[in-house]
């Protein structure tokens, strides 16, 4: 697992870790059962406070992406839905808002945007849309 963090960022370090692991899970770079470095190990590798890593792992566990197995370590969890449909829709809309406004500013047609989006989805999920 590759994680890089930057100081001088508007994104706190723990949030950078959460985002990168989340991305690696959704893109399939990390799959169910893969083990992650321990809190101590990742903190050492990144030269950051271990509590920062612990906070990131805790959030990912709460969201159901990671699970801790007693005495064995931290693993990528089986995919399961932990949010209600309404909450998932709300989060999707939030992501779409950001994406759509940035895409439109770049002056692409609706069709071009949709085409790029569906090929990205294919690439990320390996499922032809």
């Amino acid at each position: 697992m590759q994680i890089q963090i930057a100081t001088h960022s508007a994104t706190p370090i723990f949030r950078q870790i959460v985002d990168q692991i989340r991305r690696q899970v959704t893109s399939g770079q990390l799959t169910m059962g893969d083990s992650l470095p321990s809190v101590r190990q990742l903190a050492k590798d990144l030269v950051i406070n271990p509590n920062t890593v612990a906070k990131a792992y805790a959030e990912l566990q709460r969201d159901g992406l990671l699970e801790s197995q007693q005495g064995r370590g931290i693993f990528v969890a089986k995919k399961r839905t932990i949010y209600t449909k309404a909450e998932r829709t709300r989060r999707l809309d939030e992501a779409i808002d950001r994406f759509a406004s940035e895409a439109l500013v770049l002056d692409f047609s609706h069709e071009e945007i949709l085409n790029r989006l569906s090929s990205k989805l294919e690439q990320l999920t390996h499922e032809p849309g």
Partner: protein
Amino acid sequence: MNPDNAIQTFGLTRYFSKRPVVQELDFAVPRGSIVGLLGLNGAGKSTAIKMMLGFLTPTRGSSQVLGCNSQALKPEDRVRIGYAVEGHFLYPWMRVQDCEAFGRDTFPRWNRENFYSIVDRFGIGTTQKVSWLSRGQRAGVSLASTISSDPELLVLDDPALGLDPVSRRALNETLLDFNDSGARTVLISSHMLDDIERICDRIAIMVAGQVLVDCKLDEFRSRIAAWSIESSTDPGLSGQIPGLIHSHRRTHSWLVTVANPNEATLSALDQLGAVSCESAEITFEEAVIAYLARSRRSDTFLTGARAAS
């Protein structure tokens, strides 16, 4: 004193002639944490540290360190505290290995392996003479000497000053190693805000002798918000924005930083009648600088470890 705190101060105050350098300092360093003490030069950081460690008598107030009154520390209390001063003083005629032998003969508990592993991390040869070393390497030897005496608490006054990037990384690694995931305590004063962001659990910001912020680093970040405001006049001068920290002029706008924003903040911003006002993302460094840049002293969120205890 709360036994969960390695250091705690009670209204600690110090005047130099008529000038108050540290004023009514109520501050705590919880055991097992790494706390960053931030502030401009002359804000009173070193003076506060010297009083906490009993090297300077307070004009008023008191402080405790590892459960003992700072002003009555016995030698057996002092060996539990590692203190590295600004500038990393070492005897120039010694070789690095002599510094190790000197430490071994001086301290009752001495970890020789630890000394050599820290020195190695800073890339220093053990037969090198202290007077040949770079500033970063001297910092390494000084830190190795302090940490190898196996203290429970490490107090470092601006250890990163003038260090090269490799030595700074070695310093960060050494401090995280020493803290050992919360087994031992570190208080570090520094201007290197990106190092502080990496390694600290908590921060305290001193401005003109007073602590304005004392909380967890993440909490600090989440409680400060900023807006980019286009306006012909300084929105900070309106006197209407609750929790205002600082208003900074940029080319076409003002960056306004606010602590604990709420409904009242939003409606105050709305009533400014500015050309535009949008929320802006800021970095840890910008948030700290906002505090340091403001000259005004006023109240702020002081959710310190001491306040909570």
